[in-house]
């Protein structure tokens, strides 16, 4: 029962299904199944680490300089981006060329940035969520939501790109409508 309620929470807080954030990244990665999963995992790392760093920025940045938030978040993501590539380069040089494309797709997109802003907004509304641990956990949750959305899309990938789908709707439009119908069910369950 706990698992089911957790799954519902994960679906209900899923940024792609509820706020349409990161959809284009999901579609870019949807080019092949392996890409999709690895991108989703990389995004989870970005959202988790990025959220922790966003908490620190929120603490340091005065309220009067709120307009600079985006700039600082961009710098954070940029730093994580470089760090991620460096770690990948020095630990697994052989697969660096293949793996770096996931990092490129995952760094700057609405899924990651949207997560940082959503968590910050939620923390402003509910002060009990304004802790470092909560930020990191919420980031991880958003990333896991992205993985879930990736699985949902992967399951239908073959059918959505089948020759039986009318040419005008094959691929991107069919994926949009498919995700729309799933998000509709998620919305109805909230």
């Amino acid at each position, binding site marked *: 029962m706990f698992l089911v309620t957790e799954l519902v929470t994960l679906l209900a807080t899923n940024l792609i299904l509820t706020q349409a954030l990161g959809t284009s990244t999901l579609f870019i990665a949807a080019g092949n199944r392996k890409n999709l999963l690895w991108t989703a995992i990389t995004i989870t790392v970005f959202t988790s680490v990025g959220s922790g760093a966003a908490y620190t920025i929120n603490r340091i940045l005065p309220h009067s300089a709120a307009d600079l938030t985006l700039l600082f978040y961009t710098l954070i993501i940029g730093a994580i981006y470089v760090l991620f590539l460096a770690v990948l380069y020095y630990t697994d040089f052989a697969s660096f060329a293949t793996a770096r494309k996931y990092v490129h797709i995952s760094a700057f997109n609405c899924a990651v940035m949207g997560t940082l802003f959503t968590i910050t907004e939620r923390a402003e509304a509910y002060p009990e969520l304004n802790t470092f641990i909560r930020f990191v956990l919420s980031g991880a949750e958003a990333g896991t939501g992205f993985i879930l959305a990736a699985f949902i899309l992967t*399951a*239908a990938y*073959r059918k959505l790109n089948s020759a*039986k789908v009318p040419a005008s709707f094959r691929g991107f439009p069919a994926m949009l409508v498919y995700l729309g119908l799933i998000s509709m*069910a998620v919305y109805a369950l909230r």
Partner: protein
Amino acid sequence: MQTKVKTERFIWIDVMVTLLTLWLMDCFYYGVRAFVLGGVCVAASVIAELVSLRLMGRKFTADDLTCVSDALIIALMLPALFDMKAAAIACVFAVVAAKNIFGGRLNMIFSPAAAAYVFMYTSWKNQLLMFPEPHTRTGVLDKAANLVSSASHSFNITGKMSATDFELLLGNVSGAAGAVSILLLAVAAVVLLLRRSISAGAFIGSISATVLLALIVPASHTRLDSVKYTLCCNMVLFASVYITADRRIAPKREYFAFFYGFFAAMFSYILVITTAKENAIVLVSLLFTPVALGFKNLEKRIELAQAQEQAEADGEEALPDEE
């Protein structure tokens, strides 16, 4: 191929016969309004199917009449006084957005009826979940008045049922007329199971999960009441027959279909007892589409592996002959 086409048509006829019976019951309780509502749904679906098939450059054949059964399923899930224009929009949505965009009946992904129901749930929830009392006769164009919440709603909130067992069996309670006639639904389920027109695995999985959870975590004071009312309320039986066990959506292999139905029903039962979500099974059926697709992908892989094994075995057998 010929057999497959015949089978598809026979399935449709079987489903239609049971749906027409339920529609008749609907008309008995709510009069001409229910009849016209069903007619509007069917007309909207057929027109949408004709237009979209034309745009897709395909011909309308007898097999495309499945849109009629989908329309009747939608109509039977509605209150008799539901706005006809909204019902027609939902039917068009089911045909166009939930079916034909993905290639129509040749490449089904979602249950059109479930998609239409969830669409109405998100856009006209208040209207969808308020019902007239049984035997309320209204004119075709009359507006809704004196509506009450469904028997399922009261059960979800209080865990009690005010109607007698006899009333429940006959569907003489407030709710979507087609979905509350339990006796007819039970007969329909048996007929469709015997005729193999619905997925036995998905149906049995759905019912067994509901019964099992109703026994383990009762929603009522006694376990017997819990099982009885859980099966009769929230469209559990109706959705198990016409949505979860829809052969076009459920996995082909019965044991995969069983788990698909089992998990969907389990998920919806937990939602009902934790959030009192009315008719959760229909919403969950739509959400579980990727699960059904996942199982179907798995089936494809198994078939491929078996074909490969068979080909290898045939090759080995043929080898000594060649020698």
